[in-house]
């Protein structure tokens, strides 16, 4: 009864969230006295797929087929269920990312398996999975009532330890045909060379306190120096200073980085809902009464145009 891990990929490379899912699946499997097996759908080099062994997978079922290069929840669910059957897996781990959020619920229905959407830790002694609820204001212990289990793993919830091993790659015939696909891919528009916000371990975020889009240069420079992704508050994306996909908050993206630096953001409850699972929060604001300071671990009361350039120099000096 192995544990199956769905490896979500983009352009033939496993996403960071998939590597976390692999290591989480391996840890779950070890506790059950079994192995973790991956399922990789789409074209990729055998050496790249074998590299997943470094993250704990013993074996990867690889459907090396261009049909799977772009995600479709209906066809992928069918393929993953076929892989679970082949691997004899009752537990399936999927990353709780954009594609995983489509896949997990489908697998739950298809297999009549209880699903934890966004587990934030390994199960407790009673086999229950903790998950953030009420927009990060609380956690709930999910008790799955079925033998079969689907675990959607929230990003940045487990610290990966590489094993140095290589996975056995096995050609996988999923039985999925073109007619199983419900969507047709037209195009992707992705900013090249940037760290995707949802996968970032560090985030530098700015709000209306920046006064205009022309002032984002120093935010981007600071993010670059820290190896961080950039983000923004809702008003900033609403007025078009920054693209929508950078908007964190209740109606935007939810992030869970190790470090979240908020610059010129007051900290409305809707914004906090998207960032309050961050491990460490730094707030820079010229208003000492800004509500964000109540949620912060570190704060600087000061003008962003004074503090950020100084912080950039200090980070550069630290890096050197």
């Amino acid at each position, binding site marked *: 009864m192995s544990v199956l891990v769905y490896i979500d990929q983009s352009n033939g490379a496993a996403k960071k969230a998939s590597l976390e899912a692999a290591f989480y699946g391996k840890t779950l499997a070890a506790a059950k006295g079994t192995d973790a097996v991956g399922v990789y759908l789409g074209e990729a080099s055998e050496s790249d797929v074998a590299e997943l062994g470094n993250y704990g997978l013993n074996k990867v079922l690889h459907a090396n087929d261009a049909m799977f290069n772009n995600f479709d929840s209906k066809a992928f669910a069918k393929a993953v269920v076929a892989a679970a059957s082949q691997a004899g897996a009752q537990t399936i781990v999927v990353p709780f990312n954009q594609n995983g959020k489509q896949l997990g619920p*489908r697998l739950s229905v298809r297999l009549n398996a*209880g699903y934890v959407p966004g587990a934030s830790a390994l199960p407790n002694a009673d086999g229950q999975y903790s998950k953030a609820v009420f927009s*990060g204001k*609380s956690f709930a212990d999910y008790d799955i009532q079925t033998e079969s289990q689907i675990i959607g793993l929230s990003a940045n919830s487990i610290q990966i330890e590489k094993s140095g091993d290589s996975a056995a790659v096995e050609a996988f015939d999923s039985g999925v045909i073109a007619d199983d696909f419900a969507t047709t891919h037209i195009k992707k*528009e992705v900013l090249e060379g940037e760290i995707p916000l949802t996968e970032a371990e560090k985030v530098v975020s700015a709000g209306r306190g920046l006064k205009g889009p022309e002032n984002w240069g120093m935010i981007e420079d600071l993010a670059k120096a820290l190896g961080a992704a950039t983000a923004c508050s809702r008003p900033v994306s609403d007025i078009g200073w920054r693209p929508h*996909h950078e908007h964190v908050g209740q109606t935007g993206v939810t992030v869970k980085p190790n470090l979240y630096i908020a610059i010129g953001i007051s900290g409305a409850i809707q914004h906090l*809902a998207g960032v309050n699972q961050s491990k460490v929060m730094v707030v820079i604001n010229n208003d000492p009464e800004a509500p964000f300071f109540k949620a912060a671990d*570190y704060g600087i009361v000061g003008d962003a145009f004074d503090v950020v350039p100084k912080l950039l120099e200090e980070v550069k000096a630290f890096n050197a």
Partner: protein
Amino acid sequence: MKILVPISKVPDTTAKIAFTNNNTEFDTNNVQFIINPTDEWYALVRAIELVEKNGGSVTVINVGPAANEQFIRKALAIGANDAVRVDAEPKDAFFTASQIADYAKANAYDLVLTGKETIDYNGAQIGGMIAEFMDAGYVSLVTRLDIEDGKASINREIEGGEEVVEASLPLVISAQKGMAEQRIPNMRGIMQARTKPLTVIPANGNSPLVNIAAYHLPAEKDGCTYVDADNVGELVRLLHEEAKVI
């Protein structure tokens, strides 16, 4: 075109979160409830816009007790044509989705349009479950949805950008910001909503697949450590030596 919009009742964003009964139940005392924001602002409004453009009708559906009818009436006031309430407590997402999917299949809906996630359990799972029950396509986190000649053109969020896809109907979509603009019900809508059809149906006998054993509030923060604006080097030191995040 027939569009079904599931709506959920959730605590208002600013609600204080507390638990009772030995931390096994959400404390609803003094909590104000609302329609889940992405259901109301984006899914419902876009459904109404599509019907205004292409013809058809919008049905809202809620799984919940009779007390939920005030939220259903609000959705009718915003512009839905009719409504269905499945008379049951929503036990878990699987139970709830199965009720909605049964109704959608029996009444041949072309499109099911939900919000991207509810702000209480943040599971983002109802849409995908309904789609699997219906054996239909499902696209989530959608920022643009156009439908012409029975074909949907969709922009959806992916890591660091967007993907454009096309799909045929029937289809399930989860909506987020960008898809539509919030509509406030006007007096005429509120008056009309009183007489729009609201059908109550019994639940199917499906059992939930998960149960919440207990809730926990996060550990209190130690409070904010302030660093002087003239000494930002100290912040870098703290982030490295104390917080160990750089």
